[in-house]
Every structure is written in C-alpha cells, then in structure tokens.
C-alpha cells in the first residue's frame, strides 16, 4: 500500500514513520529494486547509492516524464514524531518548501509499504567530497563554490531553516556547473548524530557539546568546507574521534600561502570556537565571501596592470630613443589597461549576479547591462534566461492585496489595494497606474463591466462600489449590510451584478441605477456563483451543498439541487448545457441546465476548490487541495488524468480561447499548461504569485505578486523563443534548410516534421508506419524527405504534402540512419545488421551492400564529392571510409563507442567524439590524427561542424552542448540550458544559431552570437532594474542608479516615481506577536 502526499506535510510523513511497524531496515529496503514502480508513478531506474539514511535511486516520474531522485529512508533511522520538538517539525516543513537554485528541490514525499521516501531533483555530477579526493580546488573555484553554498544557506536561514550538517558530502557539484546543497532539514528530522555517521570533522563546537544550534552553526560548517576546499585538509584535525576544535590548541593556519588578508580574516572568524565571534548568519558570511572575491579581482587587475607595465618598461628600456614619442601612448595604454580590468571585473560580477538570480527577469535585465564583448559564458547564461517566459512588462504599485481583474479589451488590469483604493494599470506597461478611491475597506473581489466603462468593487466592509472609468465622476456605493462581500460576478450584458456575503445572502444588484433587485437567503455561505452564458440565469452553490438556479432578472429561484457536500467550485460549460459542481468530497457533480443530474466524475478524495471547462475541447479541469490537477475528458467518464501541479491548493483558469490552462497556488507558483494530450507545465518564474488571470484574447497572462507588482506575460510565443514543441518522444536528428528558414526533425514518436524557424510553427508532419523514425534528411533540392525507421525501411516522402513517394527495400533490421548522395540520386542506409546499403533514390535497380562493420551501424554520410561513404558504429567503435570506386575501406578504430562520424563540410577532416571520452580530429585522407581540441572530456555524444568548418558543436547526453573552435582559440562555449540529453546540435547555415534535438521531444533554437542575444534581451521586456538593484547589484552610486533607472523608465513610456520616503508602516500581514495564543 502506498500513501502519497504533498511534500509540504513532512511532519505528516514523520507521523507515518513514527507509527510504522518497527521492522529492521534490512527487511524493508531490499524490497526496492530497479523496475519497481512506486505510487503508480515513480519507476525506479537504477540505484545511485546507499548510506546511513537509506537508498537512493534514479527514477522516472511517469506523470511528468522527468528523471528524479528517489530516496528511501530507513524508518529505523528516524526519530519518532512525538520526540520531535515543534520548532523542528516546523523547520522540517520549511525545509521542504525551500526553493532556491542552490538547494536541491524536494518534489514530493510519501510512504511506500512502510518505507518513507522523498522525491527530489535528480542531480548529475559529484559531491564536493568526491571532488576533493582528487585534491584541493583552485582558489577561484573554491570561492565560487563557497559563494553558491552561502547563497543557498542565506535563503534557508531567511526561511528559518538550518542545515545542521554542512560538509563536502552534502555539497553537490552538477555537471552543468551548479552547486546544490543537499539533505537540507534532514538533520532536524533524523538527528544530527545519525547523519554525521560518527565523524565530527565539520561539526561546530556547540554541536559537539550538544548545545543549542543556530545560523552560526551552519556558518562554521560553511567555513570548514571552504577551508578544506582550499587547503585539502581539515581546519581542525580529528584524532580518535575527537575534533581538535574542542581542545585549547591554536586556530588553524591559513589555507594558502598567498591568501589575501580578507580570506584569512574571514576563515579565522568563520572557524571561531565561540559562535559570537563568527559572522552571525549566512548573509554576513556571504558578504565576507564577496569581499574576498573583490580582493581576488583587484589582485588580478593589479597583476594585469603590472604585467603590462613590465612589458612597457622593457619596451622603453630597449627603445629609449623614441621614449618621448611613446610616452603619450604608454599613458594611454596604462589607462586603458586599468579601464579594461575594471570593466572585466564589473562584467564578471554582473554575470555572477545574473547566473544566481532565481528570477529570469532579473537575469535578463542584468545581462542587458553587459558590454558588446562580455565573457563567453554570457551566451550560455543569456540562452538559459531567455529559454523560459519573460514578462513583457512589470507594473509596480499593487502592494498588499489579492483581487485582480482584467478589462474586457485586455488593455488594463485592476488591482485592489489594502487601503480601499483600486489601482488600474495599462497592460502595455506605459504610464502611471490610475488610483480609484471609495469610502470603505479593501475590495475582496473586482469585476469590469463587459463594455469596460465601469469597475465594480466588492468591499470587505459590505458595500458595493461602482467606479465610472470614462470620466472623473465619483464612485457610487451601495451598502449591503456589514458582512464582507466575498464573491462578485457581473452579468454578460453588464446590467446586473451578483454578490455573495459571508452571512449567507446572495444579493442581486441592478447597476442601472445601482439598487438591490433581490436578496436570496442561504443557510451557508455561497462560495461559487456564475451567470449562465446567455445571462438569463444565475447559479449559486453554498457550503451546505445546495445548488440554486435563479432568474437573473428577478432573483426568483427556479430550481434547487442538494448535493450532500460543501461546494467550493462551480463551472458552466461554454454552451450552457452542463454545469459542474465540486467541493469537500472530491467528486464532481454534473448537472443539466435545469439542475437535472447528468452524472458524477472522479472519486471521493481531497477536496476540489476550482473547476473550469476548456472552451476549446470541453475538457473539465479540477484543482484538488493536495495540489493535483485533474483533467476530465469532455464526454466520457472514467478516470481523469491526474497531474502534479502544486504543493497545496490552487486556482485555475482556461484561456478564453481554450487550449491553455493557467494554475496558481498557495505555494506562490504560477504554471501555464499547454500541449497536445497531456499538457506540460511551464512555470512563470518570479516573485510569489497571489493571483493570476488571462487577458480575454488569451494571448497574455497577468500575475500579481505578493511583493506588490503585476507582471504581464506574453504567451504562445514559445516557438518564437526558439522552443519547438509537438513531438511526443525523443528527437533524434535536426536539420536546417539551406536558407535557414525551416527545420526538419525526426522523432521516436514515429513522425518527421518540418518547422518554420521564425514562428516555431509546425509546417508538415509525415507519419511512419513503424512508429519510430531515427533520422530525417532533405534531398539537395529540399523537395523530398528521407527517413530511416525501426521497421528496417527507409522511406522517401514529398516535402510538399507529406505523401509517401518511395519505400526502399527493407533491410531486415532497424535502419538507424539514411543519407542522400550530393546529387540526390542515391541513398545510403545503415542499421543494426551492420550493413550499409546503397539504393537508387527511385527505389529501382540493384542494392549495393557494403559489409565489414562488426556490429550495428549508427551513422552514415556521403562525402561532399560523393565518392565515398563514411560510417560510424557505436557498437564496434569504428569509423569507416568506403570508397565507392571499389577501393579498400579505411578503418579508424576508437577506444570507446562512436555514435556519429563528424565529417567536415569540405570532407577533409573527421571529428570523432568518443562517448565518455575525448574529442579527436583526423585527416580523412590518411587518418592521421591532429592535435587534440579542448573539449569537455566526458559525456560527449555527437559532433557537428559549422558551415565555415571553423567550429564544432558537441552534443552531450548530460544536457550540455559545447562549441569549440578548430583553431582552439578562446574559451569553449558551454551551453547548459537543456533539461535533458541532447541527441544532436546543428549550426544554422549562417553559423549564428544552433538547433538542438532533445530527449524530451522538444527542439530548441538559440543564437550563439552575443549581438543577437543582446537584441533579444532588450526586446524581451520593458521592465527596468530598480534603483536599489542598480545600487546593490551593479555597484552604481545612488545618483547614478537613480538617473539610469529614470532614463530606462522614460524610454519605456513611464514617468519614474519620485524617491519614496522610508516606510514606517508595518506590513499588513505581520506575523502574530510572540507568545500570542494563536
């Protein structure tokens, strides 16, 4: 039996642990094996490790089609729930909710047959402990890791969470260069001693003495980790299980002989025995590390200047006669050197801040500040920032409130403020918000009339306020008693409003003039109400489970239906034929237009708090309080699709034009779901969201953040962003058309598709009868498409209409690759039977067989002159050159598997990327090897040449793509923006973009040239860095920051706000006073 639960209820999990039967861990854990499926969802792939806490598997989340880490915890290792102090339980809950780039993400948790488990982000790479076994880190890298650790800690401390077990084994270095803290909060759950496994090396003195721990305990751990990273040794040796930190000995020596004084001082304080002498929290520790980083940067700048001066002095010494002539130039060079160093330092800091930003918008704004020639990794950081949705505008001035309404024409958005005012923003981000005021408290709900002329506000104090928007007329108010008005809807014709009060009244209000038309009493509050699409009826559902159908003109009840459960949500299908209600019991009741029962969907379970019909397909979406999104088919019953959406309860809305679904939860996240079949969520990353809505045209989403801003998100632009979606399985190959305007892809979903590069829209799809296509290629005229497939047949299709033109004779084994000859007259195929076949493209004539490979062939290509065929075998680790004039084949044997042969555009070179090995380069004519290229030596997969033959793009199954120059100049470009394995990366015809084919069925197109990326960064948003961000992140002076912020605001049509005086008003959501009873 499996109990599945959201991760936020970790203390509930602990409860399960405490009540689990006391069996020996050995009795439980061996039951988990690769191939097992836990909770009907997590398929265990392979064991990654085991430790004191239990087992870790790589697993596949079948619902979300992603790889995750499955951590099974030994129940015997956990503390009983009742033994956990309340603060620790709360801390464990908070740890589960930590969401930071430097903290591993906890997705989920549950109990499987008595074994509790955690579902976590799957990390690939190694722990710092593993890395340090090969020796200390270079100072720059050690400092970078320490900074990332400190950022993760700072976020955790800000959330009231201590790690308590910082050590190199809990610092993970991913293959993409990220640093992640793992096992956060587990120390509090499992007990520090259990995790420390008997080594006190990284424990602060107060921990060793079992004294109270606080943020300074983690600071000690972070300092010990940094010390060991630099020195390769512990700061305080451990002897006989006892750490020298408990003794009276001297403090540790400096970790490096040439450490800057800032580093020595910081480590001395971080490792102080007395917590009072250490930096008091992670924020202070981080500040210290940043000062050390600056010290190193200044040192580098000084050394650069000194080197230049030395060179200049030598020049002057040997050419004294012309010293006077050169003097001016020397001075200029020195000045330029200093300016260069300062610019390099600023750019480095900017990039580091952009990389660390958890909000992609901030990353975009910081990257926009970079110069024309930033460090190479700016390309990678910019690609990643632009890979997801970026808000086109940020509207400031919506603090302390929740209610949100978008006008019918989508041009403006109203946000209720805590002081009773309503701010109206222009959604294009220009101008200042317009403030509407009425007497009374904040509005709990808002609605525009359909003509956009009025805004109706439901006041918390019990009055309805109507604002005229087309003039300066004061609002008209109508008191409806003292009970808060919690639900408000306006009729489709704009003449009526219906308001639900907390004391159980439904008040039907006429808006012309403003008056009460009818009041309908309920025995429980009405949580759901809606006008029918024609506007002649009003449906209400209350917390006693009664549904009422009212006449919208008179308020007279026409029908009632008792459902037996408190109803929280109601939805009416666009045609008005069906009505869905749901609530406490978790089932959905379907009713007809007169409330006649039509059926029940779903089964009893967690309460449902939101419902909506998809206007396009009629599907019904339901939001359950456990964070699960249910999608019910339009017509038939049966089980819905259940998708993990949020950690807790959430709201939802379909786009008015259908197809896309917006969800936003109490976890502060907003997700946009789209895609055929099972929709895939795209997070709208940014500050914690409290409300969200589509614009009526469905082309934009408005989110309201707790911090007081609104964000305007253009949607449906994934294709324009370079994300091509539509394939339902692994994409094997991606090819550009000669003009660079189209792409051709082949997928294991059995289709080959062509795409418009600019819009990302699919142009054509051919469907292979085998269900799996391994490769696709245009002929030289781009009139035909050649595919190779699992059923052993290569097929030729019309590139115009997708019709099948020729099915070549079958090979008898899967064909993994097929290629056109340069003249388009012949086709070469290669497959698992180890034979290359040469066919006439019309399907007639004799098939020529080229045999010699000792195993299956994974790649084949014609040489540019058409006189040879080159093949590669992943299975026999060879690349072979087959002269078509009957000459002897040349064989290049590699040390490891070779998936593809990287024949250069001119055909004179071949790049061999050995899987898990180095990149090697050979001359095609004689197979002599050229000097090795710098490339990431691990996890290589496929090489592809740039059209000018000066660069190579290397795809990797760890999700990275590297671009190296043939002349080995400059830093290789490492692109890490792919969430899954990349099967191929190909250059656009102009060499300025890369298209990548991914294992998750997507194709991504991104520029690798900074000017193009910079233009996209600038065009992506009208938001500006705030003055405070410029001050703190860019290091500008206050005046400079203010001036530049104002200039940016004006550039985007906004008048910058005057500097605000320091606020003395306490926040509206102040926590309870210490010791209060609640």
């Amino acid at each position: 039996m499996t109990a599945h639960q959201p991760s936020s209820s970790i203390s509930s999990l602990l409860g399960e642990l405490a009540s689990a039967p006391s069996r020996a861990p050995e009795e439980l854990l061996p039951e988990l094996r690769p191939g097992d499926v836990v909770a009907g969802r997590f398929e265990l792939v392979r064991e990654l490790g085991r430790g004191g806490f239990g087992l870790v598997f790589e697993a596949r989340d079948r619902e979300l089609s992603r790889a995750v880490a499955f951590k099974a915890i030994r129940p015997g290792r956990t503390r009983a729930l009742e033994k956990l102090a309340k603060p620790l339980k709360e801390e464990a809950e908070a740890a589960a909710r930590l969401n930071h780039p430097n903290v591993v993400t906890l997705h989920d948790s549950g109990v499987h047959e008595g074994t509790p488990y955690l579902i976590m982000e799957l990390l690939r790479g190694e722990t710092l402990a593993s890395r340090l076994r090969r020796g200390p880190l270079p100072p720059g890298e050690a400092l970078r890791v320490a900074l990332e650790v400190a950022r993760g800690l700072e976020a955790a401390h800000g959330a009231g969470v201590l790690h308590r077990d910082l050590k190199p084994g809990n610092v993970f270095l991913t293959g993409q260069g990220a640093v992640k803290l793992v096992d956060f909060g587990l120390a509090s759950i499992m007990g520090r001693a259990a995790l420390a496994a008997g080594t006190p090396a990284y424990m602060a003195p107060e921990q060793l003495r079992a004294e109270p721990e606080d943020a300074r305990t983690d600071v000690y751990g972070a300092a010990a980790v940094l010390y060991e990273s630099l020195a390769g040794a512990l700061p305080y040796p451990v002897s006989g299980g006892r750490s020298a930190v408990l003794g009276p000995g001297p403090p540790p020596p400096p970790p490096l002989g040439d450490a800057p004084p800032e580093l020595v001082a910081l480590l001395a304080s971080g490792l102080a025995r007395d917590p009072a002498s250490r930096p008091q929290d992670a924020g202070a520790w981080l500040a210290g590390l940043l000062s050390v980083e600056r010290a190193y940067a200044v040192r580098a700048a000084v050394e650069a200047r000194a080197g230049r001066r030395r060179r200049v002095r030598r020049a002057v010494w040997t050419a004294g006669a012309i010293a006077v002539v050169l003097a001016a130039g020397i001075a200029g060079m020195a000045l330029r050197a200093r300016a260069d160093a300062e610019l390099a330092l600023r750019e480095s800091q900017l990039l580091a801040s952009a990389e660390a930003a958890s909000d992609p918008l901030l990353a975009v704004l910081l990257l926009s500040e970079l110069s024309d020639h930033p460090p190479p990794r700016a390309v990678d950081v910019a690609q990643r920032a632009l890979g997801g949705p970026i808000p086109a505008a940020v509207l400031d001035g919506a603090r302390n409130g929740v209610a949100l309404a978008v006008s019918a024409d989508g041009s403006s958005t109203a946000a209720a403020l805590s002081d009773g005012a309503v701010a109206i923003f222009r959604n294009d981000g220009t101008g200042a918000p317009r403030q509407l005021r009425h007497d009374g408290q904040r509005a709990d709900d808002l609605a525009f009339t359909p003509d956009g002329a009025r805004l109706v506000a439901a006041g918390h104090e019990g009055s309805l306020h109507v604002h005229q928007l087309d003039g300066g007329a004061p609002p008209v108010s109508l008191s409806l008693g003292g009970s808060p008005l919690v639900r408000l809807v306006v009729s489709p014709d704009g003449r009526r409003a219906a308001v639900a009060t907390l004391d159980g009244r439904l008040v039907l209000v006429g808006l012309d003039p403003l008056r009460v038309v009818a009041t309908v009493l309920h025995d429980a509050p009405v949580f759901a109400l809606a006008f029918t699409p024609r506007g002649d009826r009003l449906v209400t559902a209350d917390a006693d489970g009664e549904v009422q159908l009212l006449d919208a003109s008179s308020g007279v009840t026409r029908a009632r239906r008792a459902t037996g459960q408190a109803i929280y949500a109601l939805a009416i299908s666009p045609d008005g034929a069906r009505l869905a209600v749901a609530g406490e019991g978790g089932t959905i009741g379907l009713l007809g237009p007169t409330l006649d029962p039509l059926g029940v969907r779903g089964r009893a379970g967690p309460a449902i708090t939101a419902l909506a019909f998809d206007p396009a397909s009629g599907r019904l979406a339901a939001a359950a309080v456990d964070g699960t999104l249910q999608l019910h088919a339009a017509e038939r019953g049966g089980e819905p699709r259940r998708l993990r959406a949020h950690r807790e309860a959430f709201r939802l809305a379909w786009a008015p034009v259908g197809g896309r679904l917006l969800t936003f939860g109490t976890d502060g996240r907003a997700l946009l779901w789209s895609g055929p079949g099972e929709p895939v969520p795209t997070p709208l990353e940014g500050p914690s969201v409290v409300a969200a809505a589509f614009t009526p045209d469905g082309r934009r989403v408005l989110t309201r953040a707790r911090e007081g801003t609104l964000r305007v998100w253009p949607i449906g632009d994934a294709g324009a962003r370079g994300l091509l979606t539509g394939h339902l399985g692994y994409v094997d190959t991606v090819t550009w058309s000669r003009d660079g305007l189209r792409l051709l892809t082949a997928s294991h979903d059995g289709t080959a598709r062509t795409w418009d590069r600019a819009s990302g829209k699919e142009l054509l799809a051919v469907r292979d009868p085998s269900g799996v296509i391994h490769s696709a290629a245009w002929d030289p005229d781009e009139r035909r498409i050649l595919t190779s497939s699992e059923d052993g047949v290569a097929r030729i299709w019309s590139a115009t209409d997708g019709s099948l033109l020729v099915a070549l004779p079958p090979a008898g084994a899967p064909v993994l690759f097929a290629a056109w000859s340069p003249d388009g007259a012949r086709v070469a195929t290669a497959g698992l039977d180890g034979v290359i076949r040469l066919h006439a493209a019309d399907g007639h004539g004799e098939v020529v067989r080229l045999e010699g490979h000792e195993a299956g062939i994974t790649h084949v290509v014609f040489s540019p002159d058409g006189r040879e065929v080159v093949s590669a075998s992943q299975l026999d680790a060879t690349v072979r050159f087959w002269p078509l004039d009957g000459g002897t084949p040349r064989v290049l044997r590699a040390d490891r598997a070779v998936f593809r042969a990287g024949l250069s555009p001119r055909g004179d070179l071949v790049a061999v990327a050995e899987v898990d090995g180095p990149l090697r380069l050979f001359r095609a004519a004689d197979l002599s090897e050229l000097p090795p290229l710098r490339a990431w030596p691990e996890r290589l997969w496929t090489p592809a040449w740039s059209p000018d033959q000066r660069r190579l793009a290397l795809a990797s199954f760890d999700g990275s793509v590297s671009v190296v120059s043939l002349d080995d100049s400059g830093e290789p470009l490492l692109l890490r923006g792919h969430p899954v394995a990349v099967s191929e990366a190909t250059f656009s015809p102009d060499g300025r973009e890369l298209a990548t084919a991914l294992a998750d069925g997507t194709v991504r197109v991104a520029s690798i040239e900074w000017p193009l990326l910079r233009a996209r960064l600038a065009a992506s948003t009208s938001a500006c860095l705030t003055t405070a961000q410029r001050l703190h992140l860019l290091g500008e002076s206050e005046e400079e920051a203010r001036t530049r912020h104002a200039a940016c605001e004006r550039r985007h049509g906004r008048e910058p706000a005057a500097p605000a005086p320091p606020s003395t008003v306490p926040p509206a959501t102040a926590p309870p006073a210490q010791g209060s009873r609640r």
Partner: protein
Amino acid sequence: MTAAAHLTILLLQAFRAGTPSRVPPAPRPVAATERVVLDVRFPPWQFTGTFTLRLGALRDRGVARDRGSLIGPKRRVERVLEGKLGTLTLRLDTRLRGAVYPPIFGRWQVVGATGAYAGRGGGGTFTAVDAGGGSGSPFERQTMLGRLSPRR
C-alpha cells in the same frame, strides 16, 4: 460491478435525492429549526472577543471565548458564547484552510446550552476572515450560519 461503478451509482442517487428540478420553488422543509446567524469578533490574534446572535426573533450579544485553535494540528475549537439570555457551547472544526477566500471554513455544532438556549441543538458552517485593518489575523471576524432546533 466494480467498486467505482457502485460508488458512481450511489453518488448519482445522492444527487437525484435532491428536490426535483423544473419544480417551482417550494418552501424548504425546515421542520421546526430556525436559521441562526452568529457574528463573532476577536481582537487581532486574541481568543476572547464578542458576539451577536440572531435566531428568529431572538437577539443576543455577549462574550465569546475560544479554547483550541482553528489552524493548529487538531483544527478544533471549543467556543463558549456567554450572552445575556444564556450560554451556548459550540464545537468548531476547520475543514478548509487557505485554499480559497475566506481563508478558513469549517463546521460547528452545539455541544451545550443554558438559559434561553437550553435544550436547543443544531449546527452549521462558519467562516473566518480578517477585519480589514491590516493586522494579518484571519480570525478577527467569524460568521457562523446554521440552524437550531427549538427548545425541548
């Protein structure tokens, strides 16, 4: 028949058990119970406040005291309402917290009654919201709706 199908039929029957549709509105079968509305106010983050009661023609007001917490692990409160006409002791159970507005919703029932309320039973639903002053306390204003039986 599968358990799911059986459940579906039961639920359909439950839906059909309601008042037939297309029937003109009829007086609801309220038996002899009376609609009650209780407005309970607490100062921010406090457990002692005031209440007003409307029960048919009856009006009362007085002091409200809570034991327990609507958002604690048990999500249960015993509420004592001491009015001029008598005392009502109620038990409140939170059913939904933070998922929709209002932030707290639950059910209540009478567990004790004295004075003018002696012999009355019943219960209903309640909601809790802040008073709009910015304190952040979601318990300041609680509206309790339901029905009470007449005195026996």
